[in-house]
């Protein structure tokens, strides 16, 4: 797809600040998670710099957790990379969901942007610009602002965990911040009945399939959940017409 050269994409400070401001509340629960992740690097005796670097090389918490645990267990390279791929394969669906919205934007952005496409940035990018200002310029700088906020907070929290993570005690149950974060993102993302259907199906399949190897139960849950949402939407629109 070609980008019309006449659209204005100059830096939009307001859009970037809105993106950051909307993302920071979603990043706060990620701070204890990053901290715990850094602690694992320290406890498992993994090389500190390499362990921390998973935060900018992979940049996805749950898959980093799996990769570091597998590295500590001495798993093979293939097992680790396939596991990370499966855990992060939901990002392909985020990519598909953002495709049309990003289509008018220049190629450099469509190459750089996906690096920042994680759960929190997807959650804000999928709704906010549509409501606030759906121009390509706003969308682009809003997304980059959101990405910068979540990226820098993540690097800092994992680094803090690697360096001083041993002040955290297990009975503080800081890991519980992760399900609370995703529960909140789920509440934000349910906007209609088909959305609720998608969430219920996703949750049930994920529960039933959680013994499936290396996160493939999660992938199945997302695919069936989104399909259920799409089917519910089709049924509802047929009934009302």
């Amino acid at each position, binding site marked *: *797809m070609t980008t019309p050269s006449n659209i204005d994409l100059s830096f939009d400070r307001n859009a970037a600040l809105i993106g950051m401001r909307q993302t920071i*509340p979603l990043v*706060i*629960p990620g701070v204890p998670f990053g901290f715990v992740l850094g602690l694992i690097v320290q406890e498992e005796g*993994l090389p500190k710099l*390499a362990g921390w670097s*998973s935060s900018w*090389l*992979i*940049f996805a918490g749950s898959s980093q957790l799996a*990769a570091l645990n597998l590295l500590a267990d001495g798993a093979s390279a293939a097992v*680790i990379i396939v596991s990370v*791929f499966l855990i*992060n394969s*939901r*990002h*392909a*669906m*985020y*990519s*598909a*969901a*953002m495709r049309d919205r*990003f*289509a008018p934007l220049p190629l450099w952005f*469509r*190459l750089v942007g*996906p*690096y920042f496409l994680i*759960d929190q940035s997807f959650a804000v990018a999928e709704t906010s610009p549509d409501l606030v200002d759906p121009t390509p310029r706003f969308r682009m700088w809003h997304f980059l602002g959101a990405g910068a906020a979540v990226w820098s907070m993540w690097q800092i929290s994992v680094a803090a965990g690697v360096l001083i993570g041993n002040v955290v005690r297990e*009975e*503080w*149950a800081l890991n*519980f*911040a992760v*399900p*609370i*974060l*995703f*529960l909140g*993102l*789920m*509440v934000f*993302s349910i906007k209609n009945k088909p*959305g*609720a*259907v*998608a969430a219920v199906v*996703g949750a049930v399949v994920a*529960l039933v399939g*959680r013994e499936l190897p290396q996160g493939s139960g*999660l992938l199945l849950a*997302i695919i*069936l*959940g*989104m399909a259920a*949402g799409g*089917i519910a*939407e*089709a049924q509802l629109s047929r009934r009302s017409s």
Partner: protein
Amino acid sequence: MRIWLIIAGAGIVTYLTRASFIVLGDRVTLPPIAERSLSYVAPAAFAAISVPLILGGDGFAGFNEDVPRILAATAAGAVVWKTRNIPLSLLAGMCTLWSLTWLL
């Protein structure tokens, strides 16, 4: 060196996953039902991640561990539903979890 290569490989695979549809653009077409379903990726994914973690991420751990988690998640869910404020729901959830763990 091996660990760096593995992490970098995992990173490249992750980036390609995220870039896939955005970079390929309209060179890939999806069937209409799949296009329609894409509006529901977010609720399906976020529910599929959170619910198993709440109901005992590593298998059912037993009454004393599961019940505080479920009640804490209910409190957090109620707060985020009412206030749309994730840090506040984190506070509600963690305080509920800590007090119940201490009580039980």
